[in-house]
């Protein structure tokens, strides 16, 4: 029996029992959903590189972590001060802190919320008001083994519900921190329901308090009703030994607006799947992404945008800088369905390779079943521009400074699309520290 099969057998023995102890198991629809998700997971198994969607991303090294669950309550010795390095300067926000997959009410601070807005622990909602979730949580929602496993064993996460017409002015900062150092896994489930013509900014932020070796498997469902506007951030600053796997599934109704800013700096292995379905006319979506990896890091982004209805507009731009022996994967699919006329879609992926041993596998993918559409896509892989380097050096910058300035400028084109200046500055600083030898460039941040 091979390694993965052995693990699967172990999970097969263990999980059905665990499932009965998970929040929400008193509700039959939750039990049914978990059971079906688990069956699908066992049917598909842990993905290998023979699976097309995981062709370049090999998780074998880390799957052992799936054998243990971070189920016990986290230690509460974390101080608020320890968290402050993950704050966005003076930005005033609603903050929920999730430690090792569990919502910590002591560390969280909700400002006064507009009437009717709910920001709650998913575990609590599963136990007390599971009916609220029924229209939105389905085992088929998210595809792929990790999403199936998530549906089967999710234990906590954040539930956000914004009523029709309500504008949540302050950003909602969801801070997911790893604290323990065990090789285990946590399965986090988030749901964001934005009512008609509501507005919000939700920041999913992953970080480590040091030394974590967890596998984080997070799934987020987003339901945007007619005219709703959501700015959704995914900021991944996981520990260098962590594995961060996540998927986002977005349903867009008429005239809704979904902007995603996905930034991946950390983790040994990180994988993001974003699937946006534009189910209503006049919807707009922007997928903006940046990855900076070095050493032996591995980062994989899979996105899919379905233009189901006419008159929708999608923009996608991912950029990456890959150094050392790191490897990046980008797979961006856009599907224009029959009848989705007047679709306007543009997608690009640009990469800078800083070393001979760095690798990028990029595949923009376009599938069009409608006439009268405007679609563009493209990918580039390159080194720094020699003429720009010479220009900067001729003005007195050393070759190292010039290289760093150009790298930073390349990355900053992505960060410049971020509307919250405090978040942008925070990420610029983190990006800066990630770049080789960029310490002398403070002035660029001004």
């Amino acid at each position: 029996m091979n390694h993965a099969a052995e693990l699967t057998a172990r999970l097969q023995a263990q999980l059905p029992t665990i499932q009965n102890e998970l929040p929400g198991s008193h509700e039959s629809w939750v039990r049914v959903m978990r059971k079906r998700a688990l069956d699908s997971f066992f049917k598909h198994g842990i993905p290998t590189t023979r699976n097309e969607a995981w062709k370049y991303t090999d998780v074998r090294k880390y799957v052992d972590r799936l054998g243990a669950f971070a189920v016990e309550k986290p230690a509460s010795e974390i101080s608020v001060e320890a968290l402050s390095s993950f704050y966005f300067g003076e930005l005033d926000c609603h903050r929920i802190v999730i430690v090792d997959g569990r919502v910590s009410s002591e560390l969280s601070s909700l400002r006064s919320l507009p009437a009717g807005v709910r920001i709650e622990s998913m575990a609590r909602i599963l136990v007390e008001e599971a009916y609220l979730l029924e229209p939105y949580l389905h085992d088929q929602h998210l595809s792929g083994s990790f999403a199936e496993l998530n549906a089967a064993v999710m234990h906590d996460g954040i539930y956000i519900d914004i009523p029709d017409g309500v504008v949540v002015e302050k950003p909602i900062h969801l801070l997911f921190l790893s604290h323990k150092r065990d090789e285990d896994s946590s399965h986090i489930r988030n749901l964001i329901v934005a009512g008609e013509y509501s507005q919000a900014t939700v920041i999913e932020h992953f970080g480590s308090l040091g030394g974590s070796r967890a596998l984080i498997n997070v799934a987020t469902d987003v339901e945007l009703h007619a005219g709703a506007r959501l700015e959704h951030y995914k900021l991944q600053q996981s520990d260098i030994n962590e594995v961060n796997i996540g998927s986002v599934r977005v349903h867009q109704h008429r005239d809704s607006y979904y902007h995603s800013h996905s930034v991946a700096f950390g983790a040994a292995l990180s994988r993001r799947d974003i699937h946006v379905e534009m189910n209503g006319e006049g919807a707009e979506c922007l997928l903006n992404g940046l990855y900076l990896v070095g050493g032996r890091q591995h980062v994989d982004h899979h996105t899919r945008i379905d233009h189901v209805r006419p008159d929708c507009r999608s923009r996608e731009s991912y950029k990456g800088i890959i150094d050392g022996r790191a490897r990046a994967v980008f797979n961006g699919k856009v599907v224009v369905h029959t009848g989705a006329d007047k679709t306007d879609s543009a997608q690009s992926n640009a990469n800078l390779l800083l070393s001979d041993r760095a690798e990028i596998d990029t595949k923009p993918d376009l599938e069009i079943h409608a006439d009268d559409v405007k679609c563009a896509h493209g990918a580039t892989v390159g080194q720094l521009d020699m003429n720009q380097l010479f220009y900067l050096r001729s003005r007195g910058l050393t070759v190292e400074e010039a290289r760093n300035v150009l790298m930073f400028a390349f990355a900053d084109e992505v960060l410049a699309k971020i509307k919250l200046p405090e978040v942008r500055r925070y990420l610029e600083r983190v990006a800066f520290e990630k770049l080789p030898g960029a310490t002398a460039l403070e002035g660029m941040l001004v």
Partner: protein
Amino acid sequence: MLKIENLHVNVGGKDILKGITLDVKAGEVHAVMGPNGSGKSTLSNVIAGHDGYEVTSGSVIYKGRNLLEMSPEERAWEGIFLAFQYPVEIPGVNNTYLLKAGLNAKRKHLGLDELDAIDFMQIVKEKADLVQLDHSFLSRAVNEGFSGGEKKRNEIFQMAVLEPSLALLDETDSGLDIDALRIVAGGVNKLRSPDRAVVLITHYQRLLNYIEPDVVHVLADGQILKSGDKALALELEERGYDWVLEETSV
């Protein structure tokens, strides 16, 4: 200040400069004129240190030092400035940041203290006014989305801030209307001083109406065919380049 002797330069296997000799003294303005493809831009790029050019023989001595051994940034610190014929757009890099980094690197090299932000902004605004560059350009990305004329003016603005000892202007006049040309020339004339030198590379005599050269050279087919005073420029304007080529091919 700058002494070039028998300089041969090869680009991509092709000889572009075939024995240039040029002596530029402090306080002088030299105009290098010539038809397209004569090697004018190659000459300025080699002096500024572009590594796409191979010097096969000859020497370039600047302030008594072997210039060819110096990196582009060291040349900049030592006072060489090239105003590019086609200034590069650098999205994401702020114009003011570039100047501050460049100027402070130069000051550090010369053993001077770095300028504080207030003093620096004072200089920058003063120089921007000198070339009538709107202050909004200061916070924009280097050359990004600038018109042709704005890019050229930005080059002269940078030159004014960096105060080089030797300024090379590579066809800075091309594509400028008369008003812009006057402003650019005004910026160059302000820089003229007994301890500085200027090399103007140009196709047309027009710029020389505003910046009076001490010496005019005709560069064609990689060689300086003729040198003279400003009267030579006027003669070139009137008669074109062919007569020089004919006269020297004998």
